[in-house]
């Protein structure tokens, strides 16, 4: 039976693209939930570092807290300020969230999971689209029709723009080593070289780390949203689910920058030492790690005060063991070995992204906030020059290796040390400048004990 040509075209389209569509739907549906649970992880981690417990009431150990929060935000009254521009007010958080989720589409969570089929401008796409989220911020501040919102939005935008430049230049360093913008090819390059790029260009990684913290408005760079002009910046007039979109967009952005850093610097889905064959037993680490989590749950089950909590811990432990078995089976059953790279790769990728995000949270709870002028100074006077110098240094290292046959490690070490020297010089300059600029202009002090 022949179908009409339009229906035929649709069916062919679905046939070719159904994986990507399903992945896309999963991203749109699941990412807000994941972002919500990242919020819960942050709250529990914050509580742990502050000698308290965090959410414990809603669900066992607070595990249903994000659901409760989402429900509460959904049923809140939808307030729009009086003279606000309604369309843009509605649109701004949507842009923020959409930008974050779209950029997630190009990221490869494993050698096989990727919505955008390995487009040739992978990294550029991710960086570019995630910076469209800036539009959401500035529009939100504008549409709120409030002095303080727009000042906060402008500050936030200025901060994001400056640190994106630094982040982009830091990424260029790693891209030089990879030689391509394709995401899968970058990780493959790391596999071929046998080393994660962080070891070849640590300075670029740290610049990217600092820049990405500033990109996502996290502490210590959260002045625009902490007390900017004495209110909450561009998010002030937003409440209910609109605010939730901004908030989740921020955490989705964290996942995006974590994924970019993992791809470029931490070896993507590769296990540690991917090319060293006598370390192949490291392939057993994923199931072992998961099983270890399960064992810990069993250990903690004995210490729970209430019976339902004991049951809950055992349930979690058994789930962990089941997942560990799923991870371990392909290692032994040769016919299933083909899913190994995908499955284990996804595990390693998510582990590294989690580590990166853990670092974000750890820094948030430890460090005080930068003042806005100090923040901008750090971005423009220290990070950007350093990133430029780093790009040159990596170029020099690559030439030394290819043209002059230097040892790769030696060249990398030398150029890294040079870049660190430049960093020390810049920081020293910054300290001297701040000391001189804010020297107190006081009258001559009078010695009170001199008669």
């Amino acid at each position, binding site marked *: 039976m022949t179908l009409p040509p339009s229906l035929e075209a649709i069916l062919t389209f679905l046939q070719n693209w159904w994986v990507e569509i399903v992945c896309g739907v999963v991203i749109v549906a699941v990412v807000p939930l994941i972002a919500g649970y990242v919020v819960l992880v942050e709250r529990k981690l914050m509580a742990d570092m502050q000698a308290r417990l965090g959410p414990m009431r809603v669900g066992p150990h607070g595990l249903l807290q994000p659901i409760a929060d989402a429900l509460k935000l959904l049923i809140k009254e939808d307030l729009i300020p009086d003279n606000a521009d309604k369309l843009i007010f509605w649109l701004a958080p949507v842009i923020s969230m959409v930008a974050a989720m779209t950029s997630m589409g190009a990221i490869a969570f494993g050698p096989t999971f990727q919505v955008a089929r390995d487009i040739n401008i992978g990294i550029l796409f991710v960086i570019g689209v995630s910076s469209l989220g800036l539009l959401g911020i500035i529009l939100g501040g504008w549409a709120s029709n409030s002095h303080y919102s727009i000042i906060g939005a402008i500050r936030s935008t200025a901060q994001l723009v400056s640190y994106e430049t630094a982040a982009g230049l830091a990424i260029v360093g790693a891209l030089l080593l990879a030689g391509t913008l394709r995401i899968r090819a970058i990780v493959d390059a790391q596999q071929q070289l046998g080393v994660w790029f962080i070891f070849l260009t640590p300075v670029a990684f740290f610049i990217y780390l600092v820049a990405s913290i500033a990109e996502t408005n996290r502490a210590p760079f959260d002045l625009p949203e902490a007390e900017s002009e004495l209110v909450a910046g561009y998010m002030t007039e937003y409440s209910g689910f609109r605010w939730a979109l901004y908030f989740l967009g921020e955490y989705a952005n964290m996942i995006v920058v974590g994924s970019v850093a993992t791809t470029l610097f931490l070896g993507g889905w590769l296990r540690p030492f991917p090319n060293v064959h006598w370390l192949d037993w490291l392939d057993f680490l994923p199931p072992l790690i998961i099983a270890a989590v399960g064992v810990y749950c069993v250990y903690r089950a004995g210490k729970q005060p209430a019976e339902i909590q004991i049951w809950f811990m055992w349930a979690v432990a058994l789930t962990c063991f089941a997942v560990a078995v799923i991870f371990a089976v392909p290692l032994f059953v040769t016919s299933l070995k083909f899913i190994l790279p995908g499955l284990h790769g996804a595990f390693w990728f998510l582990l590294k992204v989690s580590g990166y995000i853990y670092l974000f949270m750890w820094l948030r709870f430890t460090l*005080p906030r930068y003042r806005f002028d100090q923040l901008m100074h750090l971005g423009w006077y220290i990070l950007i020059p350093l990133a430029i110098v780093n790009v040159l240094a990596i170029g020099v290292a690559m030439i030394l290796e290819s043209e002059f046959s230097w040892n790769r490690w030696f060249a990398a070490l030398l150029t890294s040390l040079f870049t660190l020297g430049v960093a020390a010089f810049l920081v020293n300059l910054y300290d001297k*400048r701040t000391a001189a600029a804010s020297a*107190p202009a*006081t*009258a001559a002090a009078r010695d009170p004990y001199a008669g």
Partner: protein
Amino acid sequence: MGNALQQEDTTKKNSTLLGADELVINMGPQHPSTHGVLRVKLKLDGERVRATECVIGYLHRGVEKIAEHRTYQQFAPYVDRMDYVAAVSNGLGYCETVEKLLSVEAPPRARVIRTILTELQRIASHLVWLGTHALDIGALTPLFYCFREREEILKIFEKYCGARLTTHAFRIGGLQYEAYDGFEKDVERFCKNFERRIQDYVDLLTGNSIWIGRTRNVGVLSAADCIALGASGPVLRASGVKWDLRKAQPYAAYEQYQFDIPTGTNGDTYDRYMVRMEEMRQSRLICLQAIEKIPEGPILGKVGKVLKPAAGEVYHSIEAPKGILGYYIVSDGTTQPYRVRIRPPSFVNLQALDKMVRGHLVADVVAIIGTLDIVLGEVDR
């Protein structure tokens, strides 16, 4: 290096984003960082603060007027409510002033126990200051650590007199309650743990370059300005004046103990932070020295049930955690004082805010208010 000065000139010439040459911003009475109901009007020029005006009185309860209609003992719980973060110090000042008025002295045992409790209260007050000040500047974690330590002190207070915050721990003439069994052990255990905890705060904040960047050269007050403006306590000491009322005119049992007076050099926020941290250490040392030898004896001096001091007046001040806390009491021979004047350290220190904030950015205003360590209950009475 003349960048900053050039920057200042251009901001003077340019108008701000909103088209006004001078902007008045109100840090309203409700604000998470003003430590109470304080209203500060900031005159801004671009980002820089040109002048400030503090509006206070939101917590004015007429305590001095109430005192004229209460007997001396009835008024004692009221003084706790002024600086409610350091209630024991307020009570010490008041009881000592009335004792001077009556020309009685508290017995030695009472004086030593008073000293221990007051020094513990000093540590507790500085812990609240540290936690909230760090929180204003953005460090989220020290708050919880400080309150965890303070919890131990409040437990000691609760065991001693039944209350944690507004303790009314002392009586005119001495103490009402004997030190409970295990008092020395509790204080010793707290002091032994506390050294390690102070090191935690030092690790988190003292060497942190962001902290130094936010507090160095922020809110500088020279020694001459301090004395002229009447600022006292850690504010005065951080500006370089090595003066502490506990050493200059000792009261309670302070002359028996060895302790240092920490001072700063610059008079900026960082120095005030260092001075208060060191004061906590010194208070801990005083407590350790005091519990080694608490003299035996009565805890209450010879005062009758009805207090009718001879007509006249007396002024007495102590070194409260926030500065010089003075009481001026005029008696007319009856059981109720004729006039009670309380000289609050926070009220006088807050006057210095205008001078300290000029020329700084708006984000620094919150840090400077925090570093003055004001409690509005005391400012407004």
